[in-house]
């Protein structure tokens, strides 16, 4: 058996395991814990870039990781419709409107604001490299204060995860570049950014919500 593909596979997995789960940073969760939100209202994403599809990609990937953190996540499509009924069809308008107004409109405990700050695609010979930056903010509905904020930067390229080099990586790069050109799918990019941003406690994320088995079992206080 040729062991080279296995080595490449291992290095890809190792990279994923390390890079997918970001580094730990200390954050102050006093405000977060005193508000103790049960639900998070995910409002439409503000897109400050020229990548027109970015906001839709991003909005559709937010519910899963937040719900998995143990919060009730308001159904984003229903939210979109209700906002439109209220004259808030544009995401920038939603973001600039009063937090308390949004809280009352939906009966939410907190609101998640996400804006896409950067989304630069670089088309190289064998690969597409996308440099992205996202800003996440959760505001509490009791005070309107910021409970959590994180800026996630990431360079995404489905091909640069090897590091091992060799002919196996090269073939993977060619195949992957061809696939990316055929149909650029930024679902994995969005998922990966969210996974990195919400990772907790070994990452920059926020404490677990009431539906999570980790709720109130917060290691940050004992660490």
């Amino acid at each position: 058996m040729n062991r080279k593909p296995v080595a490449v596979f291992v290095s890809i997995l190792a990279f994923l395991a390390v890079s997918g789960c970001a580094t730990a940073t200390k954050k102050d969760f006093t405000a977060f814990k005193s508000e103790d939100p049960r639900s998070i209202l995910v409002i439409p994403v503000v897109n400050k870039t020229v990548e027109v599809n970015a906001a839709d990609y991003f909005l559709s990937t937010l519910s899963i990781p937040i719900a998995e953190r143990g919060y009730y996540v308001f159904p984003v499509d229903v939210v979109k419709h209700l906002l439109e009924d209220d004259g808030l069809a544009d995401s920038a308008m939603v973001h600039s409107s009063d937090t308390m107004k949004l809280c009352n409109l939906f009966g939410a405990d907190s609101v998640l604001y996400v804006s896409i700050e950067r989304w630069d695609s670089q088309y190289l010979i064998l690969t597409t490299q996308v440099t992205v930056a996202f800003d996440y903010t959760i505001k509490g509905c009791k005070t309107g204060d910021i409970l959590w904020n994180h800026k996630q930067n990431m360079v995404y390229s489905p091909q640069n995860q090897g590091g091992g080099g060799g002919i196996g990586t090269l073939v993977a790069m060619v195949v992957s570049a061809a696939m990316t050109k055929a149909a650029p799918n930024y679902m994995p990019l969005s998922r990966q950014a969210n996974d990195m941003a919400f990772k907790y406690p070994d990452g920059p994320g926020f404490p677990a919500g009431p539906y999570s088995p980790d709720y109130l079992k917060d290691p940050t206080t004992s660490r």
Partner: protein
Amino acid sequence: MKRIIFLPWLVLTAVLLTVSGCAGNRMYAWGNYDETLYAHYKNPQDQGKNLENLKVLLTEAETTGGGKVPPGLYAEYGMALYEAGQTDEAVKYFGKEKEKWPESAVIMDKMIRNARQQKEIQKNRTTQETGPAPEPGGQKQ
């Protein structure tokens, strides 16, 4: 010689790290929920397809997913039914969301009200008999 024994363990460790560290075990049966949402944003006109997709997700969550229906799914399905003009069914699913997730009460009450109003409008139109099929979403944009 040593490498041959070492390598399978390395692979196993790497797989475990990747799976446990990043994906983890999910609390809910999501299926391809995010892809479905995205497809709906990309192609909002195709309401039939969206309704069908959400129905599949919901059925799977209730059966093979062991009833671990994720938050929002009953409501999204209700929304698709509402858009398709199936207001009675929509009210049923908005009610299910509210029952399972009390946090949704405010907006589900609102949606149930909207759906009932929509039903009244439909009734009035059908009594007139002549007009075209009712616009399900009410006023758009």
